[in-house]
């Protein structure tokens, strides 16, 4: 049950440390420099610009594979976050990056389709994912990424995922 009187700093610290454990548990996210911003349960993935993300040095433009990876990451973390929310809030789980077994198992990508709408500028990118449908076994997730303007999408993607069992 939700405790209406639970101290605010305790709530924030529980959610922030769980999110940070989820993200820092994946070496590739650290290497890419991907971070997550949280507002309540809403997540925004952030990909700070870095020279190693460039795919076309002449334009310059971010690598299409980087855009795909960023969108896929945003989808997986959103899905894992949504799936663990109830257990986190009730205190059934306390994810800790130092203890691999305390981290929730991540969903596995079945397929992922990226629609490239603009070439990626050499600046920060943002992404938000929406779980369209999440069943016991399969989930369908939609993701949008943008840079300077939320309405001018860099790319969008849709993917199917296999949910961890047990």
């Amino acid at each position, binding site marked *: 049950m939700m405790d209406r009187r639970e101290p605010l700093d305790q709530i924030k610290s529980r959610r922030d440390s769980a999110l940070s454990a989820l993200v820092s548990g994946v070496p590739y996210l650290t290497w890419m420099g991907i971070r997550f911003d949280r507002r309540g349960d809403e997540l925004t993935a952030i990909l700070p610009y870095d020279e190693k993300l460039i795919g076309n040095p002449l334009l310059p433009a971010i690598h299409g594979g980087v855009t795909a990876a960023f969108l896929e990451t945003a989808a997986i973390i959103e899905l894992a976050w949504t799936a663990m929310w109830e257990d986190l809030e009730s205190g059934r789980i306390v994810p800790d990056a130092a203890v691999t077994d305390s981290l929730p198992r991540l969903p596995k990508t079945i397929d992922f389709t*990226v629609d490239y709408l603009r070439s990626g500028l050499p600046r920060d990118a943002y992404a938000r994912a929406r779980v369209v449908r999440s069943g016991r076994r399969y989930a369908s997730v939609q993701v949008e990424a943008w840079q300077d303007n939320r309405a001018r999408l860099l790319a969008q993607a849709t993917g199917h995922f296999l949910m961890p069992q047990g």
Partner: protein
Amino acid sequence: MSQTDQTRIAQQFIEAIPHARALGMRVDDLGEGAATISMPWAEHLVGDPRSGVVHGGVVSALMDTCCGAAVMAHPSGPGSTATIDLRIDYMRSANKGQRITAKAHCYHITRTVAFVRAVALDEDEENPVAAATGAFTVER
């Protein structure tokens, strides 16, 4: 120009791409509208710490680069290319510690669009890790 010259030029082209260089990509072969590019497994590319399997995003980057290279290697000589859409099917996890190799084939090209198919393999070449289909722009 011999095939090895072409592969060497393609390797220089790949090394001029910061992200491809960061992932340690290597051009293994280049043919007419076809490319084979591989990269090593590395600890910092792991997406699942329990199994040590590389993140799907790494496979995406390799597939995207390889598909783009296959378009550029088409005999009709595109000036440049960019991804319009790319779909990847993940059939199984790549084995920890093994090299991943992508093989792409540009099977149709028009004046403006190239259609590409690719597979990603680890050392167990009988069982592909992933398959991709994509559409790419063609700048003449």
